[in-house]
């Protein structure tokens, strides 16, 4: 269809195709389901954020003056549960992936649209269980639910939370299953595996982790709930059961889950770096392969969470070496992004600011991960703020940076509108500064021995804690600004046009917002991915 034809009779897009609550709640359009997920995960981000505020407020002073130990235990547990299971894991796949995977493969929808809608309802149901647990008094086991505390001694709502996690896992499985089948079976003519955007390679690798790992956390939380609910002692040492087995099963999923969070973010960064350097990704096949390598290696390293859990020293040594190996494919990505930037025609639009932020922060998070994989060092800093800082650099500095970068990159496609440049760049800078101020002092605290999950600490650490809390408030402001201007832009933002960034990729060839079936005619792919030519002029 030519541009003049479209101007004459603009076809309805997915947003204007139908109106009313029912048209949203019963939709099978992957784009609308992505919006439903966007709303749902934002709600949980706010909930998790409120708990984070409480934690940072309490830690302003060395004494426990805002809450008692019991309350504090619940607050950090619910922060972790909300953020990990209900925000970080679904954020990029279920929102950006749901929207973009079918469009990027040139399909009209995911392979199983009804399963996709069901996954959202399953997510909401799991969320409802967890919210119930939170409102009824919370849970205090830590997000890891270690036995025998969780099965025998805790007097909080472990079963409801555990079932919430059990249920929400199936939402994740459904999403992963849909992506795998869609990428295998629904690619447009000419779209070979090595022409796929790296976002899709990342989502394919993520989906593998989702379908292989999530069932194991499902059976683990189910066993936990059964043991606690019926008092039958599966992990109870008094009967010959083994709490360490729980830890093995738990981390068999929960370590790969880290890659469910960060792999899609890496996929986003690959898109952003290419689009805003106006160059093809350096070493495309290696970046693609690195995603799969991380997914596979990710399943072989869970034991590094258990270096001080009474695991055999030989197992620990092997897990230590394997954990360090993950750094190899991760570094391949970092170096290839850097090489893509080299002699690229780099522009610093808002999404690119997040991408560059990701590269810096993930490098710090990744390198401290190698430090923690070292047996001797880990025994020293295990369960300290060093670990807390490390995984926040990976999850917040990695995943949330990728999520926000991707959201800003595709927002013109999703909403059809552009957001204000000044405010969005300001927010990205505030987030970067606030993030580092929040979490860098925690490396120092942890190295000096500040244990995680304590709310009382010696006075000499107060300065660093105050810095961290101050950073958190700056970070909070940075997260709130986009909420305002993105909502504002939906009504008042200037129309973005089909391809505001002049980017390659199928998603930029359809209109903004896309029509319900994504493309007027099925696209045929004849070029390699990221075909940016030096003299290319932005058409818009």
């Amino acid at each position, binding site marked *: 269809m030519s541009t003049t034809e479209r101007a004459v009779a603009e076809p309805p897009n997915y947003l204007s195709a139908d109106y009313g609550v029912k048209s949203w709640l019963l939709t099978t359009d992957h784009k609308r389901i992505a919006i439903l997920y966007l709303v749902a995960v934002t709600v949980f981000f706010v909930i998790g954020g409120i708990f984070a505020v409480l934690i940072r407020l309490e830690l302003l002073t060395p004494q426990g003056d805002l809450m008692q130990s019991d309350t504090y235990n619940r607050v950090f547990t619910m922060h972790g549960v909300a953020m990990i299971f209900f925000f970080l894991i679904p954020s990029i796949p279920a929102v950006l992936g749901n929207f973009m995977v079918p469009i990027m493969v040139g399909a009209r929808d995911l392979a199983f649209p009804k399963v996709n809608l069901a996954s959202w309802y399953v997510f909401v149901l799991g969320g409802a269980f967890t919210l119930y647990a939170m409102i009824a008094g919370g849970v205090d086991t830590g997000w890891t639910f270690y036995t025998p505390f969780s099965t025998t001694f805790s007097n909080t709502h472990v079963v409801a939370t555990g079932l919430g996690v059990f249920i929400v896992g199936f939402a994740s499985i459904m999403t992963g299953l849909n992506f795998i089948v869609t990428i295998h079976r629904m690619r447009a003519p000419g779209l070979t595996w090595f022409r796929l955007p790296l976002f899709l390679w990342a989502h394919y690798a993520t989906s593998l982790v989702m379908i292989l790992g999530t*069932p194991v956390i499902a*059976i683990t939380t189910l066993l936990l709930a059964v043991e606690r609910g*019926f008092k039958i002692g599966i992990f109870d040492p008094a009967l*010959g059961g083994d709490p360490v087995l729980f830890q093995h099963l738990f981390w068999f999923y929960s370590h790969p889950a880290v890659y469910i969070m960060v792999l899609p973010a890496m996929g986003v960064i690959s898109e952003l770096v290419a689009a805003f350097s106006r160059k093809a990704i350096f070493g495309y096949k290696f970046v693609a392969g690195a995603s799969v390598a991380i997914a596979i290696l990710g399943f072989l390293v869970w034991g590094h969470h258990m270096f001080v859990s009474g695991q055999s020293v030989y197992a620990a040594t092997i897990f230590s070496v394997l954990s360090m190996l993950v750094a190899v494919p991760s570094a391949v990505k970092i170096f290839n992004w850097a090489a893509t930037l080299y002699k690229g025609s780099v522009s610093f639009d808002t999404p690119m600011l997040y991408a560059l932020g990701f590269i810096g922060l993930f490098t710090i998070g990744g390198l401290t991960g190698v430090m923690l994989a070292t047996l001797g060092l880990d025994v020293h800093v295990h369960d300290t703020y060093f670990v807390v800082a490390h995984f926040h650099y990976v999850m917040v500095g990695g995943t949330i940076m990728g999520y926000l970068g991707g959201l800003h990159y595709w927002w013109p496609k999703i909403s059809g509108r552009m957001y204000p440049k000044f405010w969005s760049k300001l927010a990205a800078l505030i987030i970067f500064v606030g993030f580092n101020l929040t979490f860098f002092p925690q490396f120092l605290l942890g190295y000096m021995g500040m244990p995680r999950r304590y709310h009382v600490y010696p006075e000499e650490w107060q300065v660093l804690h105050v810095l961290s809390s101050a950073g958190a408030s700056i970070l909070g402001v940075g997260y709130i600004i986009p909420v305002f201007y993105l909502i504002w832009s939906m009504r008042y933002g200037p129309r973005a046009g089909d391809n505001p960034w002049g980017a390659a990729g199928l998603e930029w060839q359809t209109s903004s917002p896309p029509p319900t079936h994504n493309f007027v005619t099925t696209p045929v792919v004849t070029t390699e991915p990221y075909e940016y030519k030096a003299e290319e002029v932005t058409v818009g």
Partner: protein
Amino acid sequence: MASPQPLLAHHFDTLDQQRESASLGMWVFLITEVMFFGGLFIAYIVYRTRSHAGFVAGSHELNVMLGAINTVVLICSSLTMAIAVRASQLGDRRTLVRFLVLTAILGLTFLGIKAVEYQEKFAHHLVPGPHFAWHGTTPGTVQLFFSLYFVMTGLHALHMIVGIGLIAWLLPRSMRGRYGPDYHHPIECFGLYWHFVDIVWIFLFPLLYLLGRSEHV
């Protein structure tokens, strides 16, 4: 088109693409099921290795005869299911309906026999929890054995119940003649599920009932 719904969903280009997608989706789903039961099997193997005596003693309390009958029942149900799939591919409506019903009956037979076994365990105070009673040595690990026995066979039975529910959903459609040479992947995919549930039992039966049978307690 005769049927109320078009056979080809809007987002697929061809019936072949639709069938291949459904089949791949089913296989991926079965992989998640393998991992789901895999967690349980790992727990069982770890505990059995550590608490050998208790697990052998617990195993001796199971009714091998009923377990063996159930194994035969399930294998027969896999055969009837395979015949039903074949009938759907050929568009043979009568055979399809007949063998789906037969599969469901065999499934219900399995569940009935399982219920008898569960009832025996209740009567002998072998259900883990406050009423568990064991007068021999190692009562703890025997209880552990029964905890795993009930979780494993219980989840398996739950899958059987889901399967019979799915047959109830497929039956009216089969009677209306919805499945034929062009469109039969719902039956095929369900067949894969049914065989999977069957195979889980093929592993459960020796692990729970047979291993260590020859050893004296």
